[in-house]
């Protein structure tokens, strides 16, 4: 006697997107989540729906990101229809800023290579000179040597996205259990049992999408999913009168008018404290990009831990020992929300696995031995 058709472990952006998709497909879905103090990467997100620069050496990932970005508009509309929540999705294109000649050379090389690897698929982008930047990005600083523009990029409000996914999931009959951290997964014949501190649940299919908690849970079902936390720090300013129409990789303005300044990359283990020197670095970088930010007040800084695999690409895997148990995790929970909702949910329900998926199985991490 099962409690659901599918149990999804993890109520962050990845789990909630998959759960929303499952509920939309008519599957009876139970979503288990931790409490208010969870290491919630979904609440520590810059909000980019981003394609450019992704997938160097992995054209499947570039395609996967582009597919999701293309589906995002409809995805947002469906959520709005189901919940009344506007997740603030806009797709004006996006810009990567180059603050030095070295960055510019790296940028050009990367994009050219990705375009090459795309084969006969279109891969649009444009390098912008100073005059073009000045038009698109008023106030751009003199230190910015050039930028790359991609029409595929956009942004959304990741917090409203999470709220909408939860609300939509409930609206479609999904059941949500917060404060239930999963402690054990026991695969059985026909059904898997999931035990939390207070209860146990059984279902024929289980999705493990627990962010940094995925590694421990995946190990319980014989899947090695190596993930490391990668600390990233962001500054948030007070609201300001709108001026930045395009999101950039360093500075982005939200619909409320708040400026988000990023970003850093550090290995501090599981420590989510902010560091004053990293805040200083982010502020410096933001000022080099847009000197006019100088008098704007920083209202908050926060840090979150990215869910980083060794190569930076997602893990989508079905346990070989225990078919019916799936692992899904990535660090681009916002960008990939649309394909998680549509494609990954269908994969979980037994539809054919797209060829792209095989690229993201954990077996790729074993490759080094055969080389």
């Amino acid at each position: 006697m099962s409690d659901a058709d599918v149990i999804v472990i993890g109520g962050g952006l990845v789990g909630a997107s998959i759960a929303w998709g499952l509920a939309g497909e008519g599957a009876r879905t139970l979503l288990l989540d931790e409490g208010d103090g969870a290491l919630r990467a979904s609440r520590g997100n810059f909000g980019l729906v981003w394609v450019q620069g992704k997938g160097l050496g992995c054209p499947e990932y570039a395609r996967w990101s582009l597919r999701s970005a293309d589906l995002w508009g409809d995805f947002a509309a469906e959520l709005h229809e189901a919940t009344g929540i506007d997740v603030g999705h806009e797709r004006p294109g996006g810009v990567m800023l180059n603050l030095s000649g070295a960055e510019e050379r790296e940028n050009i090389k990367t994009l050219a290579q990705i375009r090459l690897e795309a084969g006969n698929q279109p891969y649009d982008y444009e390098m912008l000179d100073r005059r073009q930047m000045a038009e698109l990005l008023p106030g751009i600083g003199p230190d910015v040597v050039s930028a790359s523009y991609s029409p595929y990029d956009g942004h959304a409000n990741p917090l409203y996205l999470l709220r909408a996914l939860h609300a939509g999931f409930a609206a479609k009959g999904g059941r949500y259990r917060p404060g239930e951290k999963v402690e054990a997964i026991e695969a059985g014949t026909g059904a898997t049992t999931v035990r939390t501190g207070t209860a146990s649940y059984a279902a024929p299919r289980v999705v493990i999408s627990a962010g940094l908690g995925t590694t421990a849970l995946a190990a319980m079902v014989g899947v090695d999913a190596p993930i490391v936390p990668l600390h990233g720090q962001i500054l948030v300013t007070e609201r300001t009168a709108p001026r930045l129409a395009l999101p950039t990789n360093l500075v982005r303005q939200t619909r409320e008018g708040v400026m988000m300044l990023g970003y850093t990359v550090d290995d501090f283990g599981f420590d989510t404290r902010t560091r004053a020197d990293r805040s200083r670095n982010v502020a410096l970088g933001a000022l080099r990009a847009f000197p006019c930010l100088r008098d704007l007040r920083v209202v908050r800084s926060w840090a979150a831990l990215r869910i980083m695999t060794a190569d930076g690409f997602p893990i989508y895997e079905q346990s070989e020992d225990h078919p019916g148990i799936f692992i899904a995790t990535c660090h681009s929970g916002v960008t990939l929300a649309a394909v998680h909702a549509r494609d990954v949910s269908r994969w979980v329900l037994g539809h054919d696995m797209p060829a792209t998926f095989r690229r993201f199985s954990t077996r790729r991490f074993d490759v080094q031995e055969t080389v």
Partner: protein
Amino acid sequence: MNASAPSADMIDLAIVGAGPAGLQAAVTACELGLSAVLLDEGAAPGGQIYRAIETAQVRPPGWRELLGEDYAKGGELVRRFRASGADYRPDHAVFDISPDGGLGVLGPDGARWIEARRILIATGAMERPVPLPGWTLPGVMGAGAAQTLLKSSGLVPGGRTVIVGSGPLLFLVARQLLAAGAGLAAILDTTPRANYRRAAPFLPGALLAGSSELRKGIAWFMAIRRGPSLYRSGVSGVGIEGSEAVEAVTFTVAGRRDRLACDLVLVHEGVVPNVQLSMAAGAEHDFSEQQVCWRPRLDTFGRTSLERLLVAGDSAGIGGAERAADAGHLAALAAAADLGLLPAADLKARARSALARISRKLALRRFLDALYRPRDEVLAPPDDETLVCRCEEVTAGELRRVAAMGCPGPNQAKAFTRCGMGPCQGRMCGLAAAAVLARASGRSMAEVGHLRVRPPIKPITVGELAGLEGVGAPPAMGPLLPTAPKDGAGA
């Protein structure tokens, strides 16, 4: 790590806040030979309770009597502080803190990171936010706010003023304003009648511990009752009316709705500790049901769960100015002992009288906390339309909606509604938001938890933060990042 290796001239004790706790801690620390720095965002020492105490000397005659003896005592403490030799830095706001003894400080010359062997947080308290219908209208402020205006600038309300709420400060302020010649149209006492019964068991202990304080309180109260202002007790259901500013206050007494036209409403329902810095540092906190607020977990000397951090005064828990001074003294003693600069026997000897005084007064505190415990509607506003988050304009109803969705606590509620994301970063809405969630889900405040506090604790601009000194050089020009994730975007 944030800073370079500790240097020989590292500060022994960095004190944040120039109220009675901080001032006394500085005096004690200097007496013991510690190097002490006192940082305060204000321009002059005294904190809130002794605000403008130095300029009080040049006020007109009668000023001392108006503000009372308790206030005047602060002058002596400030004099001792000025003579102590402490490194005093007014106009310096602490915007960041790290548990290993670092402080981010913003002064007139810019932002600097400093390190100390011990940090004492003595940032006092704020008035408990009272979310009422209409509370964001111009013309609504705290009773303590009106007292601040009186002390600093000699201002008194000049129009038609209603004071509403509960607690000792309410009666003190009412008495002060009346004595200063400000007319008070009404004093609306919201102390629940049931509180008198609940506090009664603590009265004998309170009489023993603080008969003079109680006598003073009764005297204020009698002066108000004998005065020309309307006095109503057992008031509930307070609301504020007006379109562009306050026009009237409405309320319920003895089952009847009433309305008073006015242009200034002074609200007060007690004070709560400023826990921003202690929470940002990561110290353990507990929810006190006795005082209905969050407090850092401390030992008798003010040591927190973090080795280098202590807290003293009202930011540890509400206890008043004299207790704050004693607590500052104890914290300085503890810091000295922990740094090996004070033998254990001396610590005991020097701590004895402060510990005894604090212990004696506990029974009085218990009585006052029980008598003036706010009504439930003060903590969690019943009307869905009432704003809980003033900055981002999030209503109680909106919070109840996300609670119904299973939202586990104020951090997720913040993510979903923006409650707590504005400039005040949860100071005004944190308690009420948690209370609304707690009531809606049948959980206690301790279970629901509190908002995570992150720096900057005080406003700092992008430019000021970019110029932060004392944290090592920024990365060389070129890529700011050591390595970026291979897929390009950082998020």
